[in-house]
């Protein structure tokens, strides 16, 4: 990254902005009014003309898009037309479209409110649906009182009254009419039967007929809403492309016209500062000079890595690009830091494959990736699918090596260590080599962590200064020696498959040389660590736990193999095979049950496999690997401009 300073007179402002926007390379360092010592007498600029019109139109377009749920991510990118064409189209078509959509949506929301009101009325009338007389007979009396409501049981009244009782399943509905002077006596009797009042609705005619009327009205409204939805859908089909193109065009306009708000200006001139990738400096300055006929001053300012917050853009080979998504989830690297994306791009699929090494699951994932690719059109979604694609290819390769297909054995024995467990008594000749697999995963952990620490030493050597730099580098070295000291001491103590055996090394004064080297390394390491930060010493046990944490590569994988084999044993061994042996109706039912178990079990295992394989692989990076050297917290490089998907420049 190079820091670029651009100064020119104000009449060149729009030309310069257009040129910068076209290049999509210039990360604007925003000008802040206060505290900018070198910028005395400067002010924040004001938007170019047309800014407010463009933003109003943009808001309108977004409102329409919202109303008919159009998303740019769901639409294939293709250029809709040139700038002037779009501008004309916006002027001509936007008001018409706006009116059309607004009319439809208002109508729709009115109908929806109406439906809700009608539903409310129906719930009000519903208690009276068993009453055979008109509802208007229940109100409007001066000499009579009417009670309507629910009671717990049937009641009889001691005072003269007319009662209509409807027995219900849970509660009983009652209507009592009495003369007003007997009111309190009736109320008292009703209270004893735990009476709940129901308001008499303001309706006329029999309740049943009213309910039917309202239900019909609701159905009619629903039909109309359906028609409106169809119309809105029609608008969507017809105008979606136009809308997203307009949105993109207007967004570009708004960004361009509002750019001066981020520049420092005087009455006659303006100054813009920003970052450009170093290989783009020449192109951008030449084009700026050309566009303004030389009426501009462009200069590269020397970068001060300690105080400037340099924006960071990844620079990776194309196969590693999708993994940047996973890096951004953690944190973007700082400008001065080693970017671990490439390592992540290589190691993540390997870990995933080690965990979910199964040809069948790998193929299922691959198909899943291609199917999802049809639906997920957004940038992030596509990148994520690419990560998953690489992981599933690695899964297939490891499946071939492990000789696994949905938990079954392929026609050849496992090329590397077998993971076939003894489930349902059919382990066969190639039983699982679990201790070897565990040690293999521990080796991976040791090497991965060693790499992390070496990178940590490099990062500290690059970023720190003076005394602290030496100490920090030595501390990282100390962590390494402690780890290797422990490992060498263990080798001298016990024989472990796939690891060197130091028990037969010569002894000094009766103590194996392996122990002596191990202890010396540990002591030296602890001293180095303590010299940097004494409190860090309490973190020493994490050396062991972090290395052992890598055994998850085998453990999670084995659990997935175990589930697959159990599913196979249950479905085939317990249902399908006996069913096939005895093809009666019971046999066929058993085969069907077996197939259902097979499908459900493997679906579950695929889901667990993605989650387990993906999460644990990424976690090993985030927690065990990155903590050794990586801080992150870099500022994202956001160049001024946009990747056009629907419009031309």
């Amino acid at each position, binding site marked *: 990254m190079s820091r670029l300073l651009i100064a020119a007179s104000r009449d060149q402002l729009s030309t310069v902005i257009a040129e910068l926007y076209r290049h999509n390379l210039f990360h604007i360092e925003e000008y802040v009014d206060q505290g900018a010592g070198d910028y005395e007498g400067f002010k924040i600029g004001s938007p170019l003309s047309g800014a407010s019109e463009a933003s109003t139109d943009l808001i309108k377009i977004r409102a329409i898009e919202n109303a008919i749920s159009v998303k740019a991510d769901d639409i294939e990118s293709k250029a809709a037309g040139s700038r002037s064409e779009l501008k004309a189209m916006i002027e001509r078509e936007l008001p018409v479209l706006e009116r059309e959509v607004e009319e439809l949506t208002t109508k729709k929301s009115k109908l929806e409110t109406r439906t809700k009101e009608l539903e409310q009325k129906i719930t009000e009338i519903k208690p009276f649906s068993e009453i055979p007389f008109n509802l208007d007979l229940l109100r409007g009396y001066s000499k009579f009182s009417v009670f309507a409501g629910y009671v717990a049981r049937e009641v009889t009244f001691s005072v003269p009254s007319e009662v209509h009782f409807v027995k219900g399943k849970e509660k009983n509905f009652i209507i009592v009419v009495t003369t007003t002077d007997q009111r309190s006596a009736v109320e008292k009797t009703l209270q004893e039967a735990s009476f709940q009042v129901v308001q008499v609705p303001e309706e006329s005619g029999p309740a049943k007929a009213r309910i039917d009327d309202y239900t019909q009205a609701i159905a009619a409204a629903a039909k109309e809403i359906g028609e409106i939805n169809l119309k809105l859908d029609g608008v969507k089909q017809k105008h979606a492309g136009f809308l997203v193109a307009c949105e993109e065009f207007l967004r570009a306009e708004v960004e361009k016209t509002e750019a001066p708000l981020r520049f420092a200006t005087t009455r006659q001139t303006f100054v813009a500062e920003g970052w450009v990738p170093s290989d783009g400096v020449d192109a951008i300055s030449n084009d700026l000079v050309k566009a303004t006929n030389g009426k501009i001053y462009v200069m590269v300012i020397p970068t001060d890595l300690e105080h400037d917050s340099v924006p960071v853009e990844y620079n990776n080979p194309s196969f590693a690009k999708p993994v940047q998504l996973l890096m951004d*989830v*953690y944190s973007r690297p700082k400008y001065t830091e080693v970017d671990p994306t490439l390592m992540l791009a290589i190691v993540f699929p390997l870990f995933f494959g080690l965990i979910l090494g199964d040809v069948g699951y790998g193929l299922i994932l691959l198909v899943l990736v291609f199917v999802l690719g049809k639906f997920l059109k957004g940038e992030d979604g596509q990148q994520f699918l690419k990560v998953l694609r690489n992981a599933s290819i690695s899964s297939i390769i490891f499946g071939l090596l492990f000789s696994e297909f949905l938990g079954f054995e392929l026609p050849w024995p496992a090329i590397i260590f077998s993971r076939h*467990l003894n489930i349902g008594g059919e382990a066969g000749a190639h039983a*699982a080599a*679990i*201790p070897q697999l*565990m040690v293999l995963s521990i080796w991976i952990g040791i090497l991965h962590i060693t790499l992390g620490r070496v990178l940590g030493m490099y990062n500290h050597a690059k970023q720190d200064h003076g005394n602290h730099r030496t100490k920090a580098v030595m501390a990282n070295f100390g962590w390494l020696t402690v780890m290797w000291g422990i490992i060498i001491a263990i080798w001298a103590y016990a024989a472990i498959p796939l690891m060197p055996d130091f028990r037969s090394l010569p002894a000094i004064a009766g103590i194996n040389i392996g122990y002596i080297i191990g202890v010396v390394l540990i002591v030296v390491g602890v001293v180095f660590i303590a010299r940097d930060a004494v409190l860090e010493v309490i973190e020493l046990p994490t050396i062991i*736990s972090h290395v*052992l*944490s890598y*055994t*998850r590569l*085998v*453990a*999670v994988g*084995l*659990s997935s193999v175990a589930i697959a084999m159990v599913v196979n044993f249950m479905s085939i061994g317990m249902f399908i095979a006996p069913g096939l042996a005895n093809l009666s109706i019971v046999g066929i039912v058993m085969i069907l049950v077996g197939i259902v178990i097979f499908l459900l079990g493997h679906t579950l295992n695929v889901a667990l496999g993605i989650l387990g394989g993906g*999460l*644990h692989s*990424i*976690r090993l990076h*985030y*927690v065990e690997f990155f903590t050794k050297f990586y801080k992150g917290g870099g500022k994202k490089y956001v160049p001024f401009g946009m990747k056009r998907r629907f419009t031309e420049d």
Partner: protein
Amino acid sequence: MADVATAAAVASTATDLASIQASQMGMKAIGAGLAVGLTGVGTGVAEMGIGAAAVGAIAEDKDFFGLGLLFTVIPETIVIFGLVVGLLLLFS
């Protein structure tokens, strides 16, 4: 006479040995089950708090999802260790 007695003793020792081995295998299986089960409970307890907090944080800020998920799976290590111990008990 003596031969018959020895043969009977050998036979009974063999059955004893077999039953002892079987019970040892059973103990191993129980141990493995306890290792996975108890560590699973431990992980669950640990993830309970983290998960609740993470969901709260995600509700405030959707961008926290990645990091929240990451924090939530950190105690998974405990159950992995349990699984490793269980596997070693059963298969090595």
